[in-house]
């Protein structure tokens, strides 16, 4: 009797482990399948509202809870620089780019936990409304732990990873249909050994 009970407990335990492991692996597979890389930036395709099937919906809810539909917002995330190395605070980076054909756009820096990084300037992002531009078109954003002149965003405590999100709000129909055609900013490491 005791032996049968132990066997059943073992079955349930092994089944639970298998179920959790396979769920994790399938989420990782969906992540790899649905991320489209454009340089250091990636976009998650399909976007909110397009997700079909249980696995895609689950992965999307877990990674982009309360996301907006793609006709309202297209967003790109960068976790590496243009050389493919992870973005790590302590290094200095530059984001160089131009504007987008949309109602408004912004670039925001997030810490490892996905939340805003506290800094004395209380600045977490730049948008087309407040960014300093050259020739009214091109801009450079400095990402570093220490304050810099111009468009500066705090990148967190030294040694910690961070990510950047570019939001294009109310994009054109062409952009929605073909987000791969959007020219995205460069992310270049300036200096640092972190």
């Amino acid at each position, binding site marked *: 009797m005791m032996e049968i009970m132990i*066997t059943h407990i073992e*079955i*349930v335990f*092994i*089944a*639970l482990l*298998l*179920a*959790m492991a*396979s*769920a994790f692996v*399938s*989420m990782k597979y969906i992540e790899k399948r649905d991320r489209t890389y454009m340089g250091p930036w990636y976009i998650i395709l399909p976007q*909110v*509202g397009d*997700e079909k099937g*249980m*696995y895609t*919906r*689950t992965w*999307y*809810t*877990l990674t*982009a*809870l*309360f*996301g*907006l*539909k793609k006709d*309202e917002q297209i967003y790109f995330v960068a976790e590496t620089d243009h050389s493919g190395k992870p973005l790590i605070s302590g290094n200095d980076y530059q984001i160089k780019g131009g504007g987008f054909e949309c*109602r*408004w756009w*912004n670039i*925001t820096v*997030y810490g490892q936990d*996905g*939340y*805003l*990084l*506290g800094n004395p300037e*209380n600045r*977490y*992002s730049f*948008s087309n*409304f*407040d960014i300093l531009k050259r020739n009214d078109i091109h801009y450079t954003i400095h990402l570093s732990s220490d304050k810099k002149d111009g468009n500066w965003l705090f990148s967190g405590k030294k040694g910690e990873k961070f990510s950047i*999100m570019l*939001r294009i*709000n*109310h994009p054109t129909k062409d952009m929605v249909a073909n987000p791969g055609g959007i020219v995205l900013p460069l992310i270049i490491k300036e200096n640092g050994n972190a």
Partner: protein
Amino acid sequence: MKFVYFSLITVSLAFFLHILFVYYLPNVAMLIAFHHMKYNNKVGTNTFFHSGIPTPRLRNVPKPDPNLFYSLCTYDVSKYPVRFTAPIPDTSWSISFYARNGSNFYATNDQTFGSKEFNLILTGKKNGDRFRKVTHKIIAPSDKGMAIIRSSIMNQKDPDKLVQLHKQVKCTPLNDQHV
């Protein structure tokens, strides 16, 4: 033979649990959001909570946009439909409805709604036949979910005025007196 039998049972059970996990994980994420609203923000259902402009300390929405003012409401249409009203400010404004499984089943914004006063009745599947003559009525796929209003504070000369306007949003359960 015994090994094959137990292996089959284990794999079958694992498959069943795998489907359960994957299917219900979004519901768990939403339950955490409901719990956060109720116990951290101390707001019950069908009441808007003005989360405000995100800061490193305000953590109601993951990866928040620091240029948006957020208001959130956990709706419950299990007993009565709920009316959502909101003045639409002269800025980028949107409202999105999320079902219990996290899917964004309805969204509109200041450019698509067609009026400066947002007015919409959200009903459950059970009471979906009510308010047939109402122009803006949607049937929620689940009785409980989340509504989020976002207003852009960018390019605003008077952000406080926008915040005051934003705080006029309401979600009101329509009990039998309203029908």
